[in-house]
């Protein structure tokens, strides 16, 4: 089904998340499900937390003990397939790569969107906007915790 739709199943998504207790600290969620020749996530990680190896076609694996959630991999991933997730004060926080205009501003409310492109019932709050040198902006948002495995990007400003 994934090959037809481009939408990962809930099981596939869950397999990329650590246990919720680990998410008290920010961690990289690497949604790279199929082998492609690509390894910037591995080579850009300052903490050696991501492993691909000599065969750059292999799917990246992550050591959540080493991952600090710094977000460098999220900004370099050519597939925009990495986000940083964290749970704090009962809310889910995400750092996502964002390449559309207009850019969100801190304090705005935006719709949240799931992997099928559908708008989530609850909005998200823009917490931080960090414009990177190579123009992939990293946006930090917060949303209610039940959307931890649903949220993938922001849609429209409310």
């Amino acid at each position: 089904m994934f090959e037809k739709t481009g939408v990962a199943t809930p099981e596939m998504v869950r397999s990329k998340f650590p246990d919720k207790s680990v998410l008290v600290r920010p961690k990289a969620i690497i949604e790279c499900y199929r082998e492609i020749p690509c390894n910037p996530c591995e080579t850009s990680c300052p903490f050696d937390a991501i492993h691909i190896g000599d065969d750059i076609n292999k799917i990246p694996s992550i050591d959540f003990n080493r991952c600090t959630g710094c977000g460098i991999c999220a900004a370099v991933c050519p597939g925009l397939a990495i986000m940083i997730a964290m749970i704090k004060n009962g809310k889910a926080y995400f750092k996502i790569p964002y390449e559309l205009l207009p850019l969100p501003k801190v304090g705005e409310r935006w719709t949240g969107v799931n992997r099928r492109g559908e708008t989530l019932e609850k909005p998200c709050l823009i917490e931080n906007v960090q414009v990177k040198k190579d123009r992939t902006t990293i946006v930090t948002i917060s949303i209610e915790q039940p959307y931890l495995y649903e949220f993938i990007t922001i849609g429209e400003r409310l």
Partner: protein
Amino acid sequence: MIEKDLVIVGGGPAGLSAAKVASEAGMEVALFERSFQLGGQLVKQTHKFFGSQSQYAKTRGIEIARILIEEIKNESVEVFLSATVVGLYKDNIITVYQGNKYFKVKAKAIVIATGASEKFLAFENNDLPGIYGAGAVQTLMNIHGVLPGKEVVMVGSGNIGLIVSYQLIQAGVKVKALIEASSKIGGYMVHASKLKRLGVDIITSSTVKRAVGDRKLEKIITVKLDDKWQEIPGSEEEIICDALCISVGLSPMHQLLSMGEANMLYVNELGGLVPIKTCDYETSLNNVFACGDVTGIEEASSAMVEGKIAGLMAAKHSGYIHPDYDSLETSLNNQLCVLRQGPCGEKIRCGLKKVGEERV
């Protein structure tokens, strides 16, 4: 007649890479590019590239073009822009058309790096204004700043179809649907997922039956295909759009090599007619080398590596040994191996095997 050590035809990723390595080896190089600027298709690639560090992974295509162009500036490379190579003759002579001048160039060796052109799709009314090749749309949009329309349908889910759809959305165009004849998405799934989360409908097992419009495109009629790629009667659907992008693959620009009577082979997996070449990338024509998409459709990362190998080998065959010949040869061939060894490389491996068998 101009005389050079090496003539390179094509200033894209393969040609630029060949120029760099050959000039490092000591050759006087003339590089001919038919466009007004160097970089080939890289100049319109606004997305970050895959691959590994040696192929500038995580760098946007347009930045890679800048790097490659910068790299040949310090070398002994004479660049001819808006210069179309129109003939390849015996004794390594090419003819060039530039401005209103037509002239001949003779070289010890020639590297053909002409790249590829877009394939098109046959359907009723496919010549209506508003129907474009996806590459053409990318040129319009990313080089000239012109949008193709307001509501677009993309045909073909290979990487080009997926990437151009994403870039259309970035430019503010509505992508109403992406249609794919096969039952599966063709390109990288990460690209497909990117589109899906932006709300693009990806419709597999479906193709364009006809375009409808008075003087310009107004809508398309799609039809479902069964597992034998036959139209399913009654499954027609209408999609209103003012632009249709066709992204159904590329074919190698073989014309110069065919004109020079190089031994060619039709290889479906490589996109069409390709030259039979040795391990040193030499075609059946003495000291005429070929690299990049003209020898088989692949990603730009492979084209850059192939270009370096062609430059290295063209130099060697003319008596110029690159100072780092041994380490370069090993590392470049290893890079290609790695790029092609995964499941995405299956098609190219299969195609190259056919070319390899032919030369024995």
